[in-house]
């Protein structure tokens, strides 16, 4: 069987800030329909990697290709029609309603001379609101929502973008247990359906285990290991990755990690 063609492929990827190498050299492939979870400690270069993969940062060296086409040769709009990104850092105050924010996800599909969104744009917005389950919130100012609901709104906006690849940076950061659960359930639904190809960065190993088909362990900008959750979530790998000791328990098929604080 020939290997499946990669949707996104990075080769020899390096990103430097001044003299300091933040990322790479790194090779990476994202297969259509899979969920690749990038795990690693703070400062490992996860966000930098995602920003390179979404074309927001231009790599110092190396090449990134989406479905065989170089990212450097695509305009921002052309990239946005293919890759939807939900960044981690957002302004505290966004003075728009839920529906407006989700509709803004349609921007890359609008022609510059278009006066108003078309029926298909509104249909995509409806579909995204429905999939994420936030139809009831549509008229609410996003500033009034909880952190988890807000994250769901931005994921809906990314879905309305109808891109082939969804890239999420720390989707459950700063959420309490219930909101983490709700969001993880939503993401699991998205990743399990095979309609979506997802790359997500997280330092929550259990979220990575729950959602990821493959895990990429990133340490100081380089690949430490890649494999299935069972292959990566092992005490010896995690100890090298985080310099901390872990105990692994099993929940069904998926390994669950617990910090081992010693006796």
């Amino acid at each position, binding site marked *: 069987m020939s290997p499946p063609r990669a949707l996104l492929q990075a080769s020899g990827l390096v990103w430097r800030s001044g003299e300091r190498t933040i990322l790479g050299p790194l090779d990476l492939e994202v297969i259509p329909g899979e969920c690749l979870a990038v795990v690693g400690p703070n400062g490992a270069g996860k966000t930098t990697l995602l920003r390179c993969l979404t074309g927001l940062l231009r790599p110092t060296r190396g090449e990134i290709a989406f479905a065989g086409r170089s990212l450097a040769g695509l*305009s921002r709009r052309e990239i946005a029609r293919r890759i939807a990104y939900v*960044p981690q850092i957002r302004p505290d105050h966004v003075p*728009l309603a839920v529906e407006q924010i989700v509709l*803004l996800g349609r921007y*890359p599909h609008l022609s510059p001379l278009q006066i108003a969104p078309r029926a298909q744009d509104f249909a995509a917005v409806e579909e995204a609101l429905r999939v994420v389950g936030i139809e009831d919130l549509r008229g609410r100012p996003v500033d009034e929502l909880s952190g988890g609901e807000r994250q769901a709104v931005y994921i809906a906006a990314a879905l309305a973008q109808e891109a082939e690849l969804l890239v999420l940076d720390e989707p459950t950061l700063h959420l309490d247990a219930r909101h983490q659960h709700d969001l993880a359930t939503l993401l699991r639904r998205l990743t399990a359906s095979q309609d979506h190809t997802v790359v997500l960065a997280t330092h929550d190993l259990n979220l990575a285990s729950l959602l990821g088909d493959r895990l990429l362990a990133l340490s100081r900008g380089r690949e430490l290991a890649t494999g299935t959750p069972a292959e990566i979530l092992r005490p010896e790998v995690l100890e090298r990755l985080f310099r901390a000791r872990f105990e692994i328990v099993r929940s069904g098929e998926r390994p669950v990690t617990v910090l081992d604080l010693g006796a």
Partner: protein
Amino acid sequence: MSRPRLALLLLLGLWLGTLIGAPLVGSQPISIASVLHGEPTASSIFWQIRLPRILLSLLGGAALAVSGVGFQTLFRNPLAEPYTLGVSSGAALGAVLALRFEGGQLLGLPLVGLASFAGALGVTALIVGLSLRRQGIETPALLLAGVAVSLSCSAIILFLQYLADSTQTFRMVRWMMGGLSVVGYREVLWLAPWVLGGSAALFALRWELNLLLTGEEMAASRGVDLARLRRRVLLATSLMIGALVAVAGPIGFVGLIVPHILRRAVGHDHLLLVPACVLGGGAFLTLCDAGRRTLLSPAELPVGILTALLGGPFFLWLLVLRKRD
């Protein structure tokens, strides 16, 4: 009808009301009936003296308010307006230089006006140049460059005033107060294309500006070319402000006051906010102008002084509101 759309409709009513009503008030009140019946004195005051001035203030207020919205969204800073960025200071420096060296006319246009137009554009180019980085223009650098250039322009203006004789100094000070005093249709025809074009350009960028409200990284990931957007907003606003300052001098705070009030009425969506600023900014400046013509009649207070007098307390009111939130 939704509340924002209703507010926009009311603004249109207010705009039309000031267009027709404002030329009737002043040191000599006239009635609409006498104008419609073609009474010579009333008609001449209405059509020849007051209407061009009202049209100029409607256009000028629109330029100031729309530029204010453009800058505030671009810099994600509620206090940004043409004055914060030094665009007006550049224009003032140009005008003061022309006054110092007794500028006459060039190609039939007053040199003072041309020099201030050039000053506005020159300062914009300078601050963009100063804030250019490898990854494009950086917003914090742009804001800092604007403040620094603005302060330098003010210092050079003071220096030029010190060197000038008393007549020149008086003219400079009077010019910097901003006013719509000697105005005919020529100024209106000069200003209209810049303001209408600039406002249309910002309206056309409403999707990009809305996306900026969700953050620069989000906007870029949705397909907005941030560097190009910044260039376009800066170009549109500096052309509008330069053209206005050339005929009316610097008029402060309108770009700050009007967008803040209008956001409360129509919300932050630029689809409604930009048209609201065209209407509301114009009506606001026209009402200020009508106010200053009647308040101290027959002495005429420059409108720039009145807007500045309103601007200070408004700033404080904003601060108090924020504190309470």
